[in-house]
């Protein structure tokens, strides 16, 4: 990537419970890109996402917008990352709007009942972006899986952070909703946000991402535009599969096919 990097990591190492989970990961990612983070199970994808957001301790340097991550207080970090964890659990049956409004928490809007007009606008924008206005008063526990995942995405968008980190946002969704989620993230990136998505779906990664990061056993083994990063060699080495490659409606198609 040629543009000035928004988020950089230098020689990132993460140990969890004495085990090396990430080693020597360096990357530089620019605003306005949709980055897919792929790799086999246990490669350290979620760990990398957490480390980038400062949710777990790491060694090495992480910089966001020119600031060292460790120099930023918790609240300031929170304003810079919209974090969408895997499973996006909600523990109480709260109305969808209140969930989305929690995205304004880092900005000081800690009470969804007392939103400033500015925060209410951000909540509204986020809800419009993923089309969840119609069930804003419904409890999230009463929503379907697809609707719930959209509410969770709206919550992450409402932070209006320069970086969105989404951990398998398409998992357990039907194909239509998977595409919807990726489209929403693509639109978000096109507005100038750096979006990093963990996914197992190489097809979605190839189709929607500008840049792909391939992790294996805690190390970054390949990165670049989808066609390069997901070359036949990488597919064979990292995933031990071959893939069918084509172009459909002017978009790249990769369909994982057979073991080799």
């Amino acid at each position, binding site marked *: 990537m040629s543009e000035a990097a928004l988020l950089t990591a230098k020689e990132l190492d993460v140990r969890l419970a004495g085990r090396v989970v990430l080693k020597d990961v360096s990357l530089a990612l620019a605003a306005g890109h949709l980055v897919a983070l792929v790799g086999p199970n246990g490669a350290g994808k979620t760990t990398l996402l957490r480390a980038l957001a400062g*949710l777990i301790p790491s060694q090495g340097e992480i910089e966001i917008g020119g600031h060292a991550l460790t120099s930023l207080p918790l609240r300031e970090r929170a304003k810079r990352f919209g974090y969408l*964890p895997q499973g996006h659990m909600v523990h*109480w049956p*709260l109305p969808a709007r209140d*969930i989305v409004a*929690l995205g304004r*928490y880092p900005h000081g809007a800690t009470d969804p009942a007392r939103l400033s007009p500015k925060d*209410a606008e951000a909540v*509204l924008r986020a809800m419009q972006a993923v089309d969840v206005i119609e069930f804003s008063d419904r409890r999230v526990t009463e929503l379907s899986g697809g609707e719930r995942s959209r509410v969770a995405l709206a919550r992450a968008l409402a932070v209006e952070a320069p970086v969105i980190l989404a951990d398998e946002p398409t998992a357990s969704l039907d194909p239509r909703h998977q595409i919807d989620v990726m489209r929403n993230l693509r639109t978000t990136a096109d507005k100038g946000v750096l979006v990093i998505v963990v996914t197992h779906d190489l097809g979605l990664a190839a189709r929607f991402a500008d840049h792909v990061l391939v992790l294996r056993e805690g190390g970054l083994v390949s990165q670049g535009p989808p066609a390069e990063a997901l070359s036949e060699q990488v597919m064979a080495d990292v995933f031990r599969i071959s893939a069918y490659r084509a172009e459909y409606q002017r978009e790249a198609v990769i369909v994982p096919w057979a073991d080799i």
Partner: protein
Amino acid sequence: MSVEAVIVTNEDAARRRIGATAALAAVVALLALISLGIGPVRLSPLSVAEALFGGGNEVSQVIVREIRLPRTLLALAIGAILGLSGASLQGLLRNPLASPELFGAPQSAAFGAVLVIALGLADVRSYALPVAAIIAAFGSVFGLLSIAGRNAGLLILILSGLAISSFAGAATALVMNLATNPFLVLEIAFWLLGSLEDRSFQHVILALPFIIAGAVMLFSQRHAFRALSLGEETAQSLGVDVGRLRLFVISGVALGVGGAVAVTGTIGFIGLVAPHLMRPLIGHDPGRLLIPSALAGSALLLAADIAVRIIPSTSDIKVGVLTSIIGVPFFLYLIMRERRALGGGVA
């Protein structure tokens, strides 16, 4: 939909909650007046109010302000801190079956207090008593949360709570077992049942500072509980210092429950029941449940303390016994309702 619509819909809900909370406060005030009027000399709520503010005759003034007021104040404050502790623990653990007594906090506090009494380190009116109770309560809640770990399911929490309260009970029994003075044992046994009888302003002064400190600590975390609805990781990503939050909740519960147990013995199940009564009225937002749960706790304990004075019986029923007799079936009902989550092993 417009920005105004987002804000206005919220205002409607807020008005409803404020109405419910105000009604609840009125109920608490009424129960407090009734509580002040009950005893060998029965006084109507009206003459109680009169006496309270310096009117009426001198006898009823003495009865209300000097004899009965401490008991009512303690019921009010202890009920409130128990309700608040229950709501806070449920908020922290995102779990409707969390409460101080299920985690062994009052039982441990009682052990701390009993130990101090048995060792002759303090009589029942010294500050050593609440301090020992608070330390023991802190130890139990801290221990429980350490054992259970960060994203503990219902089953682990309940089992660890069972282990800790059993241990505290056994330790208390051991102290009584080894005590050589039979009068002391009898005194401890009575006190363990949990009662508000014959409490004076000395008791109020002993407990109230700790209860207030605990309440302030818990209430200060109300917004963090709300963010925690999305899980610890997301709350952290929103800027919540989860480690600090846990320490605040453990300390707040220990201060409140320890202070309460030191003057009344163990009074259980208010903390479990109060938030559940409030959810249908207030909603599930754990931050907004705190004050209503405290009010509901006050109302429950005042009502229970009125009941033990009205129910005809050959000897006095202790209020702690009554709250448990009512609370345990409610706990069973909750288990039945949460059966699916419990059956799955994790919540």
